[in-house]
C-alpha cells in the first residue's frame, strides 16, 4: 500500500486520448461532471467507466440540462463546472448554456466529441463546426485533433475558464484523438503570454477614486457579481461600512451583502427598488463595483446619473466606459482594489443621505410591498409565497430562479444571509435555466437547502430534468409559481400592447402527477390557509419535493422602469 502511495506520478505512461481526458480532469480536481454520451464521445465515456471512484458523472436528460446544471454547480461552489457532450446535436444543445455562462461570467469547461479528423469538413454524420458556432459565446475554444495535445488543451481550458473574468471554454476533441495513444504528462497552466487576466491596480486611480468618495455628499454604491467572483465580500463590507455608503445590488450581485445589512438599500434596475432607482439620478458620486451597467440596470443611458462622477472598479478593461463614462477607472481584482481604496477613504456616515433611501422605501412599502406580502386579494401572490419560504429557511437557502415575474419577485423578497446563495440567469434571461441549475447547485453544496423557484412556463422548458433528480436523488425543493401565463410577457402585453394577450396563456398539465411519475413527492395548493403548512412540509421533507402554488393570474411586478425610460421615472403601479 505504502509503495503505491509513494509512486512517482510524473512518470510518463502511454495511454489513450480518452483516458488522458479523464486523467486531466482528475488532475484539475473536477470530481463532478455533467453530460450526455453519444457516438463521437464514446471513447471518453468508456474511459470514464474506469474513473467512477474519482469522477461522478451526472447523466441529465438533455445536453441543455447538463450545461445549466454545471452552471448551477459553478455558481454555488465557485469552482469550474464541467460538461461533456457528443458532436453535432449534442454540442449545439450546449450553446444556450454557453451563451448564458458567457454573459454571466460563469467558469465552465465544455468537452465535446467530434467526428474523426479525416472526416472533418465532409458533412459527416453528426458533424457540426462547433468551434465556429461557439466562438462568439466562448471565452476561448479549441479543436484538438491529436491525442498528445489533450492534456495541454485541458490545462489551458481550466486556467482560462477560472482566471480573470471567468467564462465558458470549449474543447472539441476528434474521435481519433480520443482513440490514439500519447505519453501522458500533466502540467497545470499558470500563464499564457498573450493573456493578462488580472490587470494591476493603479494606485493613482485608487487615489483619484478615494478623493471623489471623500468629497461626496451623496455617494452611491452599485455592486455586482464581481464581488462574489473576486471573493471580496468581506472587503466590500468593510469598504461601505467605513464611509457609510448606501449600496444597491444588481441581479447577480445579490447575496454578496446580507439583505438585512443597514447599508443595503436594495435592488437596481427594471424591477428594482424605488429608492435606488430614483436616487441614481440624485447621487453625486456613483461607485460601481464588479458590475457592467447592463441596460436593465441603467434604463435610458442618456438620462442615467448624468449629474454624478463615476468610479468603476472592474477586472475587465473592456467594461470601462463601455456604457457609462467613467471618471475614475480602477482596474484589477476588487478584493485587492477595495482594500487599497478602503485604506484611503475617510470615515463617514452620510445619515441624511441614507434617510432619503428610507423615505422612498416607505413609499414603496406602502404602495407595493404591503399589498404584495399581505394581500387583500383572494388569490395568492408570488411575494407572499417567497416571504413564507424566507421564514422557513431563515435566509440560509440557495435560491435558484428561472426567468420572468417569479424571478423578479423572488430576488426582490428573498432574504439572504450568505454569499453565493442566489443563482439565476441574469444577462441572457434563459427560461428553462432553473431546474437543471438547481440540480447542479444541490450536488455542489449538498448540505445546503436548495430551493428552485420557477414559473409554469420555464418549468416546462426543461421539465425532463425531473428524471435527473429521480436518478441522482438530488434533494431539490421545487416551487412552481403557476399563473397559467407567461407572466412577464403578459404583463408587457397588458401595459404596452393594449392587453392583446398573444400566445401567452398556458394550458398546463397536472404537475404533481408528473412529479409523482418521477418519484418526487408533490402537492398543489391555491389557498392562503394551506400555504404555511405546505411550505413547512416541503422544507421538512428529506428528498426532493414539488410544491405547485396557484397564484393570481394577472398580477404584475412593480416597481417597473419601462424600457427606454429613465431610472428616475420608475413606476409604482
Amino acid at each position, binding site marked *: 500500500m505504502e509503495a503505491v502511495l509513494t509512486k512517482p506520478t510524473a512518470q510518463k505512461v502511454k495511454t489513450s486520448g480518452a483516458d488522458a481526458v479523464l486523467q486531466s480532469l482528475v488532475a484539475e480536481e473536477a470530481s463532478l461532471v455533467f453530460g450526455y454520451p453519444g457516438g463521437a464521445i464514446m471513447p471518453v465515456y468508456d474511459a470514464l467507466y474506469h474513473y467512477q471512484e474519482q469522477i461522478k458523472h451526472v447523466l441529465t436528460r438533455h445536453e441543455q440540462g447538463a450545461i445549466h446544471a454545471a452552471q448551477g454547480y459553478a455558481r454555488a461552489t465557485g469552482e469550474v463546472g464541467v460538461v461533456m457532450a457528443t458532436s453535432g446535436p449534442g454540442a449545439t444543445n450546449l450553446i444556450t448554456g454557453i451563451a448564458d455562462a458567457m454573459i454571466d461570467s460563469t467558469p465552465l469547461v465544455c468537452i465535446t466529441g467530434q467526428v474523426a479528423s479525416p472526416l472533418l469538413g465532409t458533412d459527416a454524420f453528426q458533424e457540426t463546426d462547433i*468551434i*465556429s458556432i461557439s*466562438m*462568439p459565446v466562448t*471565452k*476561448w*475554444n*479549441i*479543436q484538438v485533433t491529436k491525442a498528445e495535445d489533450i492534456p495541454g488543451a485541458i490545462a489551458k481550458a481550466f*486556467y*482560462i475558464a*477560472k*482566471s*480573470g473574468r471567468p467564462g465558458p471554454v470549449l474543447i472539441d476533441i476528434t474521435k481519433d484523438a480520443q482513440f490514439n495513444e500519447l505519453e501522458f504528462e500533466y502540467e497545470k497552466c*499558470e*500563464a*499564457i*503570454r*498573450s*493573456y*493578462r*487576466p*488580472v490587470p494591476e491596480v493603479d494606485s493613482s486611480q485608487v487615489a483619484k477614486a478615494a478623493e471623489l468618495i471623500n468629497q461626496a455628499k451623496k455617494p452611491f454604491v452599485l455592486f455586482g457579481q464581481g464581488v462574489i467572483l*473576486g*471573493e471580496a465580500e468581506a472587503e466590500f463590507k468593510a469598504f461601505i461600512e467605513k464611509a457609510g455608503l448606501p449600496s444597491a445590488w444588481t441581479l447577480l450581485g445579490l447575496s454578496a451583502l446580507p439583505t438585512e445589512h443597514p447599508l443595503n438599500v436594495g435592488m437596481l434596475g427594471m424591477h428594482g427598488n424605488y429608492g435606488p432607482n430614483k436616487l441614481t439620478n440624485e447621487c453625486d458620486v456613483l461607485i460601481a463595483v464588479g458590475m457592467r451597467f447592463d441596460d436593465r440596470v441603467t434604463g435610458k443611458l442618456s438620462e442615467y446619473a448624468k449629474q454624478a462622477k463615476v468610479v468603476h472598479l472592474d*477586472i*475587465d*478593461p*473592456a467594461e*470601462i*466606459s*463601455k456604457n457609462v463614462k467613467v471618471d475614475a477607472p480602477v482596474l484589477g*481584482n476588487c*478584493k485587492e482594489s477595495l482594500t487599497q481604496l478602503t485604506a484611503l477613504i475617510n470615515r463617514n456616515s452620510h445619515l441624511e443621505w441614507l434617510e432619503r433611501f428610507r423615505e422612498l422605501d416607505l413609499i414603496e412599502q406602502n404602495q407595493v410591498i404591503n399589498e404584495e406580502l399581505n394581500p387583500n386579494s383572494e388569490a395568492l401572490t408570488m411575494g407572499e409565497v417567497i416571504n413564507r419560504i424566507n421564514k422557513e429557511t431563515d435566509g440560509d437557502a440557495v435560491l435558484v430562479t428561472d426567468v420572468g415575474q417569479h424571478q423578479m419577485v423572488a430576488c426582490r423578497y428573498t432574504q439572504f444571509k450568505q454569499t453565493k446563495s442566489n443563482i439565476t440567469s441574469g444577462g441572457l434571461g434563459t427560461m428553462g435555466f432553473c431546474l437543471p441549475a438547481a440540480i447542479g447547485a444541490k450536488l455542489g453544496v449538498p448540505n445546503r437547502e436548495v430551493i428552485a423557484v420557477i414559473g409554469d412556463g420555464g418549468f416546462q422548458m426543461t421539465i425532463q430534468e425531473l428524471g435527473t433528480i429521480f436518478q441522482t436523488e438530488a434533494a431539490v425543493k421545487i416551487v412552481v409559481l403557476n399563473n397559467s401565463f407567461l407572466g412577464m410577457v403578459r404583463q408587457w402585453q397588458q401595459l404596452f400592447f393594449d392587453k392583446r394577450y398573444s400566445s401567452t396563456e398556458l394550458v398546463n398539465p397536472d404537475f404533481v402527477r408528473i412529479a409523482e411519475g418521477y418519484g418526487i413527492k408533490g402537492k398543489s395548493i391555491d389557498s392562503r390557509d394551506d400555504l404555511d403548512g405546505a411550505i413547512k412540509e416541503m422544507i421538512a421533507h428529506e428528498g426532493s419535493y414539488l410544491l405547485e402554488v396557484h397564484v393570481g393570474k394577472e398580477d404584475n411586478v412593480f416597481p417597473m422602469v419601462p424600457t427606454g425610460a429613465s431610472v428616475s421615472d420608475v413606476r409604482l403601479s
Partner: protein
Amino acid sequence: MTQDFTITAFTENHIGLLNRITSIFTRRHLNIESLNTSESQIRGIHRFTIVTNTTEDTVKKVVLQLEKQVEIVKAVYHLDDETVFQEIVLFKVSVEKAAEHNLVERLIRDKNARILSVEQDFMIIEKTGHKVENDELLEFLKPFGLIDYVKSGRVSLIKLDEELKDLQKLLAEGEQPTNTSN
C-alpha cells in the same frame, strides 16, 4: 464623426482567431474596409491590420474587445497620419489598347506604376500607393481597355516605436504565473 482608423492587433497564430476577430466587428454592425494578416517582427506573433470607418468612441471599444481575447497580445488604433501605409492594386490591361495610347511610358513615368508581366493579349500593371492615388489610376485606365483589377488590403507601420516595445514587455510579463484564484 466617423473616419478611417487602422487597427493593428498582435496575436498568437491560432486557428479560428480570424473568426473571433471579425465577429467583434459583426456584432457591432461594423464594416471591415480592409484586412491584412502577416507575421510580425516578433517570432511566433502575427499582426492583423484592419481598416474600419467609424467613430473614435466605437473604435476604442472595439480595440478593448479585441485585447480581451485570450490570444490577442495587444491591439491599438491609429489615424492615417500616425502611420505609414500602402495598398497594392494589380491591373490587367489589353496590350493592343495600351500600345494604341502609348500607355506604358505614361504609366511608368507619371503614375509610378510598373509592368509585372506582358503576355500575348494582356499585361499586368502593379501600382502601390495610397487608396486615393490607386483609385486615380483605376479611373485613368478604365477607358483604355481595363480587363480586370484586384486591390490588396492596407499594410501599415506605426510611426512611433512605443507599441513594439510595449508588446515585448507584455509578452515577457505574460509568461509570469497569475493567481488563478482571482
